């Protein structure tokens, strides 16, 4: 895939990969969403986040229960999906079980409530049924689901639903309220077209300006089908069609620092900034 493929063996491998890609519904997908930076887009075989398939967004440990960071990331992706010419005017269906999603915040991130439809279910099974139904409906550009775990069967069914109309799915892993906090989210075998692990990252304003900057994510692309992984600090961008702006590349892929060691270090607050 990279330019360093010179040997005949590497060449052969590349040729085989391309042949296989022609059979893979994700890899042969021509509709792509540029994430705003060549370094990120280059991680996907074919360039850019493939549409017409589903992606998995996993929050860092503290975010697993509230799923705010992942919801923001998904809202930004959906927003640029709707505004770009990639998917004709369509709806975003958000399937959830807890109704703490706050639409004004989503519309700030570019997902207008006029295009949003919320579906509340009572069980995981109902969530998957609703997602499958939504993804295969005409006029639905994307569906976002908040689920606890995704099995192989569910993943496969979602993929087939996505292929029917070319809708894109984003699945947020969210631990149910009240379940044991130390039960880690098990990551199942690879079925999603890509899997992101997301943690918040400190925002920055232009020098001298007080307050909070646009939201930032320490986003680690753990897996991309046919592609490679990577890690970046990404900032929400509202300038062009791209949803993000890459601020920095994560040197090691350690996005979420272990929580126990955090917190009580020499974090004396710098001057508090405040708007009068």
């Amino acid at each position, binding site marked *: 895939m990279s330019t360093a493929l010179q040997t005949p063996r590497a060449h052969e491998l590349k040729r085989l990969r391309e042949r296989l890609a022609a059979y893979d519904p994700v890899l042969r997908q021509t509709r792509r969403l540029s994430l705003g930076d060549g370094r990120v887009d280059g991680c996907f075989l074919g360039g850019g986040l493939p549409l017409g398939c589903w992606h998995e967004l996993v929050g860092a440990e503290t975010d697993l229960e509230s799923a*705010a960071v992942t919801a923001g*990331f998904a809202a930004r992706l959906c927003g640029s999906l709707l505004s770009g010419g990639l998917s004709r005017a369509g709806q975003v269906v958000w399937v959830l079980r807890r109704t703490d999603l706050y639409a004004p915040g989503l519309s700030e991130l570019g997902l207008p409530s006029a295009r949003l439809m919320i579906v509340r279910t009572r069980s995981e099974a109902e969530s998957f049924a*609703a997602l499958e139904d939504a993804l295969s409906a005409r*006029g639905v550009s994307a569906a976002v689901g908040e689920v606890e775990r995704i099995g192989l069967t569910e993943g496969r069914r979602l993929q087939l639903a996505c292929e029917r109309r070319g809708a894109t799915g984003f699945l947020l892993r969210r631990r149910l309220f009240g379940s044991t906090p130390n039960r880690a989210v098990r990551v199942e075998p690879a079925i999603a077209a890509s899997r992101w692990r997301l943690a918040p990252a400190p*925002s920055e304003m232009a020098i001298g300006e007080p307050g*909070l900057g646009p939201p930032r994510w320490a986003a680690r692309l753990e897996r991309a089908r046919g592609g490679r992984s990577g890690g970046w600090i990404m900032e929400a961008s509202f300038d062009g069609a791209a949803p993000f702006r890459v601020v920095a590349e994560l040197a090691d892929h350690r996005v979420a620092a272990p929580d126990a060691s955090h917190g009580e270090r020499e974090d004396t607050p710098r001057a508090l900034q405040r708007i009068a």
Partner: protein
Amino acid sequence: MKNARRLTAVNDAAAKAGLHPFQTVADALALEPDLITEDADPDADLAALEALGDWCVRFSPAVAVQAPDGLMLDIEGGEGLWGGEQAMLDDLVTRFRGAGIPACAAIADTVGAAWALARFGKGRRVVPSGAQRAWLEPLPIESLRLSENDAETLVTLGVSSVGGLLKLPRAELARRFGPGVRLRLDQALGDAEEALTYRRAPPPFFERLAFFEPISAPDDLLRVATDITAAMSRRLAGALSGARRFELGFHRVDGRVESVGVGTAIAGRDAKRIAKLFAPKLETVDPGFGVEAVTLAASQVERIADAQGRLADGVHENACSFESGGEDGVEALVDRLANRLGEAEVWRPAARETWIPERAVERAAPLAASDKAWPADRPRPVRLFHRPEPIEAIAETPDNPPVSFRWRGRTHRVRKAEGPERLAQEWWRAQDYGPDKVRDYYRVEDAEGRRFWIFRAGLYASDATPRWWLHGLFA
């Protein structure tokens, strides 16, 4: 004799013993010492009559309940389904008898004639159209629904039958009795109009299917549901209309009606789509010993554009700009989800004009167009807790944002903060209004970049420690 206890109804055995309604209990007991009496319950009688009226919807959707003992059905145009009026009448009376309800019935052009013949005609009578005059003549004068006084006066005058009354000069009649007698006579003969109060307004979109053999297999129920929806769909198409609510009624052999209903987001008449919505609900229908008729009523009928089929890339008339028509469009999706999960579980968040965060979002219908939006200059979280969660905050001064706070057992050191944004309760909600109901919201970011929406409750007062709450999380 005003305060005497009287019989209101008697059973067959009592009738044989010579008892009759309106007799005083004392007289009845003298005739029949073993008489068992029950207190009359007119409310229960009326309720039972109304239930019977509902059941009669199988014959006609227009049923008027005439207390205390009558039902009036407008069967205009419906008799063909039974193969004639006589067959229909026989069917009705047989069913009543089968259910243990003694009934007399008659079919006539006018309400008055049907009333008279059902009560005084003895037997099942079908009066040929326009022949009510000849049929009414031999009947007693009481059959005209006259007031008690008028009837008694006529009898004392020697006029005991309708025929006798008809011989009297009309002008004389009006002078002696006022308009009452003449009106009743004219109504019975069809010379005067008479309005009935139907138990429910006859739905104009109503379909009915009856079967030779009762059905009960789930497959059959589904098939008849599909058939009747198709019939309704044709009917709606003929009127260039669609409906948003469909009620399917399964009339069982034992007289009970099992009904299921579905609603759609946008008025429609696509038979396949509606039948599909019914399909999962048919499981809940208990066919008992069989279903012998099925009815379908459509309500909330609206005019809709002609072709509701697939519009390739066109713009649907009702919906905004998304492709929505057809079996697999957004409307159909909304209908499926709303019928499966409940209508309250599918919604579109819409802006409401208030500053109170928890009230700023309302649930609108999923496909409703919305023009209002939230103010863009106020940052709002993506997750808002239904109840703000208390946090332990350390602030340098009470009206500054906190330096650090503890939430769910974890300490967060605030690195950046924005605010305050002061939100007070709306003054017209008097019980919520007051200085302690003011909230100062801050947007804070901790060392790891997590963003929180926290507020201090109440104005700063030196004697009380301010209470802090966490209300939402930003992305």
